[in-house]
Structures are given as C-alpha cells and as structure tokens.
C-alpha cells in the first residue's frame, strides 16, 4: 500500500542534484520512510511493518514535481528508493511522443494540369 505526503523541496526532477526538503524531517517521518534500500531485490522474509510504502510529492519553487520514495536520515532525505518525475502537462510537446516519425508527414498532392 502507498502513502503519499507532500513536501516542498529545493529542486525537483534533476538527475544531478537529488531533492532535499525545505523543512527538517522529524522522527515520525523517519520511521515512516524506513525503506528497504534493496527495493528491487526479491524479499524472502518480508517484514510486516513495511506494508506501507511512503512516497513524497515533492514540489520545488519552479513548479517541477516528482513522486519519490526517500529514505530519511539526519532530518533530511538521504537516499531514494524510487523517483518518478511528473511532467508538467503544459510543457509536453504534442508531437513529442512520435518525434521519431518525420515531422512533416502531411499529405500534399499536386494536381496535374496539361495543355491540350
């Protein structure tokens, strides 16, 4: 099951610099985010207190947003189990999804006219 918490961060959706929270995260948050760092590996003895996966909807001042499952340590995000970048719909280029097809694929026929 998934829990989503909102957080303001310094910078979202950036591969170089992972998001850090604007405010300090307390012990409660830390407990909620005791993620299994080996998230993609199979679990043979699942721990029952881990039924909740806690995601943060992280929003930065520019409006970029990501849905990220962090590990909290030392009142801040220390590691990230999973990061999902949320695109800003206004920014999505309509033709993006099919950029690989030729851009100008419109039909333009030229009628043939001949002098009698």
């Amino acid at each position, binding site marked *: 099951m998934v829990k989503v918490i909102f957080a303001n961060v310094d910078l979202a959706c950036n591969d170089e610099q992972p998001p850090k929270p604007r405010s300090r995260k307390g012990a409660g948050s830390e407990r909620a985010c005791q993620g299994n760092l080996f998230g993609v590996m199979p679990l043979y003895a699942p721990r029952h207190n881990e039924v909740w996966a806690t995601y943060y909807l992280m929003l930065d001042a520019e409006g970029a947003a990501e849905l990220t499952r962090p590990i909290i340590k030392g009142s801040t995000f220390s590691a990230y189990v999973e990061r999902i970048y949320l695109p800003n719909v*206004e920014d999505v280029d309509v033709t993006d999804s099919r950029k690989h097809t030729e851009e100008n694929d419109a039909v333009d026929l030229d009628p043939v006219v001949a*002098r009698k």
Partner: protein
Amino acid sequence: MFSYRRLCLARQRRRLTAKALAEAAGVSYVTISRLENGENPPDEGTVTKLAQALSYPLKFFFQDDPESLDVNAVSFRSLSKMSAKERDAALAAGIIGLEVAAWIEERFILPKPDLLDLSYETDPEVAAKSLRQYWGIGEKPIGNMIRLLEAKGVRVFSLSENTLSVDAYSFWRDDKPYIFLNNFKTPERSVMDAAHELGHLVLHKHAGTQPSTDLSRHAEREANQFASAFLMPLNDLKARVPRRVTVANILKAKERWRVAATALAYRLHVIGHLSEWQYKSACIELGRRGFRAGEPNGIERETSAIWQKVLTQLWVERTTKEEIAESLNLPLDEFESLIWGLTSPSHQLDTKHNALHIVK
C-alpha cells in the same frame, strides 16, 4: 438569339430585383418581366441598356441557354438563414462556374474525378476512413485540402459572396464534382467547409438536400462528422494528443491538422478525450482568447494549384485575365470572383485595383 434565361442569370448575379433592374436600365418593369418570361424578343436598344445596367457584355445574352442548377440538387449549408436573393446569387455563380469549368476543360486536361460513392455508408467516421484508404493517404494530416480535392478531380471555385450565411455548396454535374467555397471565412474554416462539401459529394451523391427538412439536417450533421473525421483521423489524434488535454495543448495541436481550435476541441470531446465539463471550459477559454470569432495565429489561406497553373500557362501564352473573361463573354469581375482567393497573391494583385476608386 437572345436568351431570356441569361438575362435572369445576370440579374441574379447582380442581386437586382426585376424592378431595380428596370430602374437602372431606364426601361419599364413590364419590359423586364416580359423578357424574362420569354414572351417577346427584345429590340437591340433595350438589350444594350440592360447589358450596360448589369455591366455584362452584350454577347453574354446571345449564347445558348445556361445550364440550370436546381436548389434541391445542391448541398447548401444553412439554407434557412439565407435570403432568396443570396441563394439565387450563389446558385447563379454556380452556373457561371460551370461555364468557366467547361472553358478550361476545352483547353486543359484536368485530373479525372476519383471519388468514392459512399452513400450506402451509415457512419460518417467509417466513410471518412474508407475514402482515406481508397486514396492511400492513411491517417496523415492533410497539408492542403483544396489541392487534394483538385488532384482527385473536384473542381473548386470561389464564392465571393460577402455574406456569412453562404458557407459553401457542392454538386455533381455530368459525373464531375464541383465545390464552391466562400473565401470570406478564416482559412481554417474554409478547410473545414471544403471537407464538409467533400462529405456531401461522397455521402449524398444521389440525394439532393431538401431545404430545412429533417433529412437535410441529418445530411448536414453527417457531412460535419465526415469533415471532422476526415481532417482529424482518430488514431493520429489519439497518438499525438496527450490524455490530459489543456487549452495550450489544443492550440499547439491544431497546427498539425490545420483546423480551428474549437473544431479540434469538439473532436476531442467526441472521441472522449474531453469530458462534457472540460469541453465546456475549453470552449469558454478559447472564446476568451478570441478563437470563437476568429482564429488568431491561423494558417495561411489555401490556394488552388489548378488555377495557378492554368493562369500561369495562359500568361506565358500572353493571354490575360481580361482576354479569358472576354472569350467567356463574362464581365471581368464575375470571372475574378470565381477564382478570387484561390490564386496566389501575385495573381490577386490585379484584382485589388478594381477596388480602388478615383478620388477627385
């Protein structure tokens, strides 16, 4: 021999009542009425006066009777909004258009009509798809609707009726399809009108539209659906427009299909990308940005490739538009109004100075 039907035709083109013509020509109303009913042949003086009043060449009246266009055989849009005078003038333009078309075909070989008869098809969406398949254009957007129509043998003319109640009309004559387009609309609207008329040509080939009947309203709806589906094919639309549609997306996407923003919003609503509520708010927002009345940042107006080529060739042969009009026995302005806006700006230049008046 004097053709009384040509007198009637010229009068309708000039949007004159018999009475107004009588006054303009300085003859009695009875004379006009008797002439138009073919009751007696006119004397030379009267015809000269009438020709002058109508500014038609005298020869025009001494040709064979013109072809007739039955209002029921023509697919008119919004016929109910049109006055009889407007309707007759538009129909008369059609008759003259037929003569111009015949004139060209005597001199040039034009593409042969290559349309499907889809009158058995009950779903306009399927009809649009079938026609696209038949033409082998898949689901690609149409780069130029008029040129596509011309390449498929449709004769396209301009309807220079400066009135918003005449959109366009189309008909079949001797197995040739004709479309008359009003060029006073936005270019996007003209593209849609052309596709709408194409819908009539393939869907309602055998059924004329009876004005203001349920049947004609049904035919109009079908032609609208056809136009929408033909210009914005379902799969292409689904593949390219994101699931969450915003007004910004609509404005960007409309460039691909070269349609009005409101037409795209409606299509997205029809295919279920926009809910009733989203569609309404999109319409309000588009209206606020001026997309109801016009089309800001619109496409360029489409021009006719056939007219371009014909006029260029004739120009090379040192035949001017004046000479073409003369050999058609038409006044220049009538000839130009049929190709107005269909030719490139360079050809339009000389139409312009007709509108200039000498100011003393």
